């Protein structure tokens, strides 16, 4: 029985954030109800596929999945459990935003088997939160966080963001220290990316209002600060933007980089099954051996420990040196990659410009 990762997309939120280009939008009660109903049907439609698999992780992402009612979430999990076989220790995560849950909802989550929460905080500075267009304050986050702990959740992730408007190195450090001080098991620290089609794109395009944003060098320092400060609190970096206390790495997230098979259900969700990538409503992309190898490399390199040479050989029948020898040599010479035991990985400098290195494996 093969392991499977399940991703369930809830494309709703209370209000779109200024930087968000994910598939999510505010919707009324009726739309949400209709979506949940069809989502449940869709989940059940995978009965046949489900037979070959055992679900190792579930991630309910969005949008803000927690704006659904406890009852709606229960319907979704009912459908999942009636369709798929779950491991005894399946990691089940739900994403939420402060102010969208209460004690009852959290208790209900616990009862459904949800054992990991991912809370979008982004910053502990209310001015920065307002600039991002977040719906909450730091105070509201604290409330939600303590409720979650009180409800018995022992695996909580907090999402943070650097390079946001008005942020300084000092304010970011404060955010890091306050957050780490709460001792969540996992912290994700991304940097703001200004995407087309967002309010930020209009505001900051072509260098407009650049004064609001930390400059390039500051941004780089912030990344270094993240690692250094979180280390003080016992977090280790296991993926370019993810930090965890021992034993709390996000299995679902790692699955993507290890090319585990995963099934995405819901609007716009992507899947990788049997070396085919597909998004609902689009033609599947069948990956050639060459593409599989290239994915193995550029995805795997997001992990700090890197990619395993022996696993490469097992999966593709030839050595990593034979396929990528030249690139590896070049990257090592440039100080962007290094080898450690069975693993090939990015150096600190390589992490800084990971896209450059990864694109070498295309």
């Amino acid at each position, binding site marked *: 029985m093969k392991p499977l*990762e399940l*991703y369930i*997309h809830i494309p709703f939120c209370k209000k779109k954030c200024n930087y968000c280009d*994910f598939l999510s939008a505010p919707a009324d009660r009726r739309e949400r109800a209709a979506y949940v109903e069809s989502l449940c049907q869709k989940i059940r439609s995978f009965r046949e596929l489900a037979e070959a698999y055992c679900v190792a992780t579930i*991630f309910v*992402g969005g949008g803000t999945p927690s704006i659904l009612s406890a009852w709606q979430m229960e319907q979704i999990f009912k459908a999942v459990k009636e369709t798929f076989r779950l491991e005894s220790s399946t990691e089940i995560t739900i994403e939420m935003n402060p102010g969208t849950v209460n004690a009852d909802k959290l208790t209900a989550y616990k009862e459904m088997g949800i054992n990991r929460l991912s809370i979008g905080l982004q910053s502990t500075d209310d001015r920065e939160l307002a600039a991002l267009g977040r719906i909450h304050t730091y105070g509201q986050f604290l409330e939600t966080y303590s409720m979650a702990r009180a409800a018995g959740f022992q695996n909580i992730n907090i999402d943070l963001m650097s*390079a946001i408007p008005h942020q300084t190195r000092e304010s970011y450090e404060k955010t890091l220290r306050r957050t780490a001080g709460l001792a969540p098991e996992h912290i*994700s*620290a*991304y*940097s*703001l*990316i200004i995407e087309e089609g967002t309010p930020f794109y209009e505001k900051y395009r072509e260098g407009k209002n650049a004064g609001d944003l930390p400059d*390039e060098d500051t*941004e*780089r320092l912030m*990344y270094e600060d993240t690692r250094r400060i979180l280390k003080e609190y016992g977090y280790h970096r296991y993926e*370019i*933007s993810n930090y965890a206390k021992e034993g709390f790495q996000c299995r679902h997230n790692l699955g*993507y980089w290890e090319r585990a098979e*995963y099934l*995405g259900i819901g609007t*716009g*969700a*992507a*899947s*990788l099954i049997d070396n085919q*990538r597909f*998004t609902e409503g689009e033609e599947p*992309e069948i990956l050639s051996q060459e593409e599989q190898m290239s*994915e193995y490399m*550029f*995805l795997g390199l997001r992990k700090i420990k890197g990619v395993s040479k022996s696993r490469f050989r097992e999966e593709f029948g030839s050595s990593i040196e034979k396929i990528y020898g030249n690139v590896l040599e070049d990257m090592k010479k*440039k100080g*962007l990659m290094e080898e450690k035991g069975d693993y090939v990985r990015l150096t600190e*400098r390589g992490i*800084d*410009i*990971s*896209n*450059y290195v*990864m*694109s*070498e494996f*295309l």
Partner: protein
Amino acid sequence: MAGTDQSKIRNFCIIAHIDHGKSTLADRIIEMTGLLTSREMQSQVLDNMELERERGITIKAQAVRIVYKARNGEEYIFNLIDTPGHVDFNYEVSRSLAACDGAILVVDAAQGVEAQTLANVYLALDHDLDVMPVINKIDLPSAEPERVIEEIEDIIGIEAADAPRISAKTGINIEEVLEQVVEKIPAPGGDAGAPLQALIFDSIYDSYKGVIVFCRIKEGTVKKGTPILMMATGARAEVVEVGYFGAGQFIPCEELSAGMVGYITASLKNVKDTRVGDTITNAQEPCSQPLPGYKKVNPMVYCGMYPADGAKYPDLRDALEKLQLNDASLQFEPETSIALGFGYRCGFLGLLHLEIIQERLEREYNLDLVTTAPGVIYKVYKTNGEVIELTNPSNLPDPSEIEYMEEPIVKAEIMVTSEFIGAIMDLCQERRGMYEGMEYIEETRAVLRYRLPLNEIIYDFFDALKSRSRGYASFDYEMAGYEQSELVKLDILINKEEVDALSFIVHAGTAYERGRKMCEKLKEEIPRQLFEIPIQAAIGSKIIARETVKAMRKDVLAKCYGGDITRKKKLLEKQKEGKKRMRQVGNVEIPQKAFMSVLKLDDK
């Protein structure tokens, strides 16, 4: 063809301002005389290179022979010779005109006489051609044929009252044009029995027939077996075939005699032997002297051309050799650049010629090229008395060995409407022009005369002229020798290493400005790399400008949501794609187009 009555031949060309309908009228004439049915007609028969049609300009001279049955019941032979349409090819134009006896002047019924109209008329009159005006585009609502006729008479001073009023586009009144060709354009003269004297107005290479020479027989007769001599190049051969020009094909005939236009093939392998403007005569019975006006056309603009993929070097040589077969004015010789590897230093008549060759190499021969900044030929007088003709800036001797340098100068005539005189004078001043005078040719139109260094006009002068005059200025120039000038070699150092392919010669007075702009431009063109890259401009060992390309930016740590790998992959592919078009120079990757960036310094 023997016995064709000279009085039944008309050799003419069509001259016009750009867009006044020259090619369209040529098409209509060919169509009217039944040479091709309109279904067979590809629009603009005479511009037969894809590139010519696209750019709307004629690059090679073309000719076509048409039989016209006139109203008087007689059949006439028309030889219509199309001339190249750009200042780069001025000499070819003058030779094509010399092959004609008359010219149809096409004037737009709405726009009237334009600067280029005048330039062309004067050129035709210089060659003693009878000019016959035609008013085109009378179908336009804004057409004012009466006013335009008056203009022609007032400004040009030729009779225009009975000029045919036509629409070449819709075919109105084309027959009237043909009738007037019969009446107004003189029949050729010449004695078929005299020693052979034929003017070469073009030549092309055909892989079956060898060189095909386009010529106008001024005196005498030529036929298969005639031993011929090219009087300027001294090449000799025996005629294999003579004939005339059908539409898009060569039709052999018995002989060509005085007054006729046609072609000769003669087991010649190289178009270099058959220079435009040369006189062909009978080697056994030569004429006493060649026809006037021959000059050897030399390239004026040089640049390095390198295959983007070094392995394609032999392909580039083959392609250049093939193009040269048809284009004697294209020159090339091998050169090596530290930055670009093996390539060729190529010589062209002008920037348009360069662009055309470059485009043809890329399109017809599928080559990806890196072209260095074009330059002119400088004369370097060394302290030891030696004189070097410098075509590649990298070969400039050490300044301590240079006594002085000279640069080529042109005499330019710019026709411009009075409202733009100020703007155009500014432009000429900026380009180190020396004002020589101005004459009003009518109330609102003037000719500005300037002496300009050639290296100031080869890049974008023509474009600048057009944009500053909203398209109204036209420009013509001729070489006016060399003048001593304060010139320096500007070197570009990337990551402290001199990149030979980016060096160029510049006037000392503008060196700082150029160097600064060049660094700025390169900063934009060169993507960030692993390390910081200084870009410096230097004269000798003195750094005059500096910019820095910062080290590669830290990648944004975006969230990769719900396993959307496709999006990530696209991002990486884009990054990868960018790397392909780079040249490795030292340990810096330079995009190919950066080598041309000196050309775009005036972009605003």
